[in-house]
């Protein structure tokens, strides 16, 4: 069997297990390529019925306008149900003091909004587009991963997962995080997107953008990212290999404006995908620490 079919089969199987085992699942949608892939796979899993659960987007308020535009387009195209939880509102309602300084990001605050969204909607399973090849803590994830009442991940005490049997039994208040595309690599995702003609937001393709250079990375210039006086803003042809919000995602210099060129570029890249993630660079265990407190 072709490896893309093998991966698709596995993901579709996981989506169906979630729909069968949980009362109130939700698909965590970031607007990035992996969550767009998740939507496409979910559609396949339940066709000809609609996806039997909503999407939830944790909106930091600092997103690329192109991502938000595409999100709304996709929701409209497939007639999906979308819940948006605003980090801005979490900040206001909880009187949270935001990070300051030139590295200020709402990345950590997303977790608070996410847990709030899960609680308010009583979601018992959250489907996330994390992949094991992305990052060393994510490489340790199960497909069904139990979170306690506080959304915490107990990495040292994960449930065994035998063969393809997924044990979704949880206590009330607990929550399951589910990762249907665990075994896909970055290249698999792109090859599948090409094979299936999946549409993506324009930020993934080479375009002209105002950027500035900091710590060897190319930051997108925007109202949310404060460049210092010696960081001059220049126009560059860039694209984004990974898309978080504008405060945590760096661009790459690229002329790849179609899928063939993007795939060639990734095949020969010297730097990993998350090498362009400013949020991962905070410490060696940045991802593990965030996951422990409930980050997806």
């Amino acid at each position, binding site marked *: 069997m072709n490896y893309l079919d093998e991966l*698709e*089969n596995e993901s579709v199987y996981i989506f169906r297990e979630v729909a069968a085992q949980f009362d109130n699942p939700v698909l965590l949608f970031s607007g990035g390529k992996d969550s767009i892939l998740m939507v496409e796979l979910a559609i396949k899993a339940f*066709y000809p019925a609609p996806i039997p659960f909503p999407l939830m987007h944790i909106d930091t308020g600092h997103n690329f306008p192109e991502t938000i535009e595409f999100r709304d387009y996709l929701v409209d195209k497939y007639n999906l149900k979308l819940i948006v939880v605003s980090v801005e509102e979490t900040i206001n309602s909880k009187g949270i003091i935001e990070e300051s300084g030139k590295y200020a990001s709402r990345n950590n605050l997303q977790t608070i909004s996410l847990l709030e969204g899960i609680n308010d909607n009583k979601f018992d399973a959250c489907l996330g587009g994390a992949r094991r090849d992305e990052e060393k803590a994510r490489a340790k994830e199960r497909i069904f991963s139990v979170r306690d009442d506080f959304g915490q991940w107990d990495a040292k005490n994960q*449930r065994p*997962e035998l063969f393809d049997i997924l044990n979704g*039994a949880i206590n009330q208040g607990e929550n399951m995080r589910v990762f249907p595309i665990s075994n896909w690599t970055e290249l698999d995702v792109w090859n599948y997107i090409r094979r299936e003609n999946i549409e993506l937001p324009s930020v993934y393709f080479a375009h002209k953008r105002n950027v500035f250079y900091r710590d060897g990375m190319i930051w997108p210039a925007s109202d949310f990212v404060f460049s210092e006086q010696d960081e001059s803003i220049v126009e560059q042809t860039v694209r984004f290999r990974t898309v978080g919000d504008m405060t945590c995602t760096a661009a790459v210099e690229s002329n790849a404006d179609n899928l063939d060129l993007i795939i060639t570029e990734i095949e020969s890249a010297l730097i990993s995908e998350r090498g362009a993630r400013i949020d991962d660079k905070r410490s*060696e265990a940045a991802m593990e620490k965030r996951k422990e407190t409930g980050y997806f």
Partner: protein
Amino acid sequence: MSIIRISTAGSVDDGKSTLIGRLLFDTKSLPQDKIDAIQLSSEKKGLKELDLALITDGLTAEREQGITIDVAHIFFSTASRKYIIADTPGHVEYTRNMVTGASNSQVSMILIDARKGILEQTRRHLFIAKFLEMEQVLFVINKMDLMDYNQQTFESLKDELLDVCVAIDFPLDRVSFVPISAKVGDNVVEKSKHMDWYSGPTILGYLEQLNLRANLNDDFRFNVQYVVRPQSADFSDFRGYAGKVKSGTIKVGDEIQVNSSGQKSRVLRIFKGNSPILEAGPEASVLIELEKAIDISRGDTLTQSHEDVVHDKNLIAQLCWLDKRPLNIAKKYLLRHAGFQTIVAINEVVKTLDFDTLNFMVSKLVEQNTICEVEIKAAAPIYLDNFKRNKKNGYFILVDRDTNATVAVGVKQ
């Protein structure tokens, strides 16, 4: 291009994580920023060379202690194949994680420290490979550099390992041996310059040539996961059965039977995603629409129409106990197999395996990591094949209804 799933096994400090690191490093699968990060971490630990184990030991607790606690999933590919490696822990207390990794792989690489020879963990992991009907086992004799690359060391270990295979009845045509040094890089990707006496392939060479047998059983088994009922204008009375073909194939027009009830119908349409297809084979996640409306729900197995319906509520199985709490014979557990679940009692522990002698003995105590044979009585008939006969439809898990924990994995005998 196909995917090959591999898991590592072996005792603590046999160098499993270092081997994976070496494989990735020598196949140039590591991007520069990851190498830089490992370089930095190695320097912080006061090491002169790259600590290749840091590539897979991703948890803080693992890095602190220099051990592997849970499975890391590592990906790399060559021109002809894609590999997913489950790097599993060697400590006895994390055996459940080793079993997790092994159950989802086709090849087990069991590492042995050439200085230490066969340990209890070697035997345990080989037996687990047998328990799981692992397709291939590669014995990797590591740290040959510390034994002066001595041929005799390798040959006598090989003989001893063959004896163990014979003792537990593991098929010899499914085992191979390779002498390596993961640290130095001998016979991992590059052929060793220190072991001219070894003419076999490197580890990568072995993996590239590996001919994995498909599931030999072609009995049709389809586990229903979910019933799809769109209730839309276009599909008003549509009822489709979403699930996975475990073995065999199904074609449009074939007659099928619901195993629990014996009711029969013919396949009207098969969908893969939104495309209608004419036939579906092993591992395919599809949706089946039948000609007649018959009673089918999650947990049902569809088979070919000429097979006998199973009414058996009794089951003899081998278990590998995974939970910290020992098996409690007075307790009822939940047996799960695909979408099917039922309450079961363990009527009797027939025998348990002694990892020292590799013989089964009469003992009723089933603790964490015990492999045993049990008699199970279920509340509802269980439709499973003999695991040896059909690997894809012969396994189950037991769940503790009080804790929700997966306490055991079992295979039908």
